[in-house]
């Protein structure tokens, strides 16, 4: 059970927060992370449009041989993405707690511009207590 990484993607597909918690993932530059986040946003849009029976929430979990990506879509279109090991069963509750921390520390902070990269110390603190890491 390892939590590798947390991403927050805004409703336009831009990566506004990215943080690694454990070694093991390939090291990428911040530009590559931006591209991957945009791609994930596109994949999500495809999966939610392709639904054969009406509206769909879109992709929620992507599993590979070595990792699992859990995506939590909020009502406002912000996506929280958690990259974990395959065995991790806890991703969804954790993402809900991340959403709560986001609502408390980012949305209520007058110095944070909506849809822009998150630079809020309190959010970092809450995420640290939630997911560990430095």
């Amino acid at each position, binding site marked *: 059970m390892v939590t590798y990484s947390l991403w927050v993607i805004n409703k336009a597909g831009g990566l506004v927060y990215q943080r690694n918690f454990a070694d093991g993932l390939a090291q990428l530059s911040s530009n590559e992370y931006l591209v991957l986040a945009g791609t994930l946003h596109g994949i999500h849009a495809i999966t939610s449009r392709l639904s054969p029976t009406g509206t769909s929430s879109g992709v929620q979990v992507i599993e590979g041989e070595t990792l699992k990506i859990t995506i939590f879509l909020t009502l406002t279109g912000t996506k929280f993405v958690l990259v974990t090991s395959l065995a991790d069963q806890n991703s969804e509750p954790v993402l809900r707690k991340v959403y709560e921390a986001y609502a408390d520390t980012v949305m*209520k902070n007058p*110095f944070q511009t909506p849809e822009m990269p998150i630079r809020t110390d309190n959010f970092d603190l809450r995420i640290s207590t939630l997911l560990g890491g430095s």
Partner: protein
Amino acid sequence: MASSSRFSVLSDSANSTRYSLPTTPQQRPFLKSNIYDRNLNKTRTSEVSASAFAFLFSEMIQYTQKRVNGIADLERRLNILGYRVGTRTFELMSWRAEATSKAPKREIRFLPALMIIHTQLWRAVFGKPADALEKSVENDDEYMIIDNDPPITRGISVPRDLSSLSCSALTAGIVEAVLDGLGFPARVTAHLTPTSNFPNRTTILIKLEKSVIDRESALGNN
């Protein structure tokens, strides 16, 4: 008549299927419970959501920040907003505390007045008393009220380029208004004084006017 009946048929179908509007005339919800008709002394059910206030306060700061030059100006404007809250809070607090009392009284000495602010005002506004009350060692006319984690600034992370800003300037304004109302004019400011355990610890600094100090010494020590 013909046209009016056709109209009613049209609007009927529109009501029920296309727009799903309510068919019965809508009752105005605010007529049921008007805030002005509520009992002023019922404090238990009149609490407001901290989240709702956090969003309101955030908007107040963003609105103010667009209209000021610099941190001192921003704090001054927040102080003025707080002053307007304070005058009303003080009126309500006095009403709740003294209206039912057989011998209503008003504090005329400074230290009991400060205790009222530390406990009663804090409880009325924040739901808990302040954490400490201190007297300045260097200056006789300075007193400090300390809150280890002010509820109104919990959602706020001040960026580094504004690090000297304390959004508790609003609280300072409230305290200033209450002191004015009690007859102790003073200048009140808010300062962030973090400790390792309490990163949001805030000191409300009260600097009394000279007339207050003179009156206190004239009244003596009894």
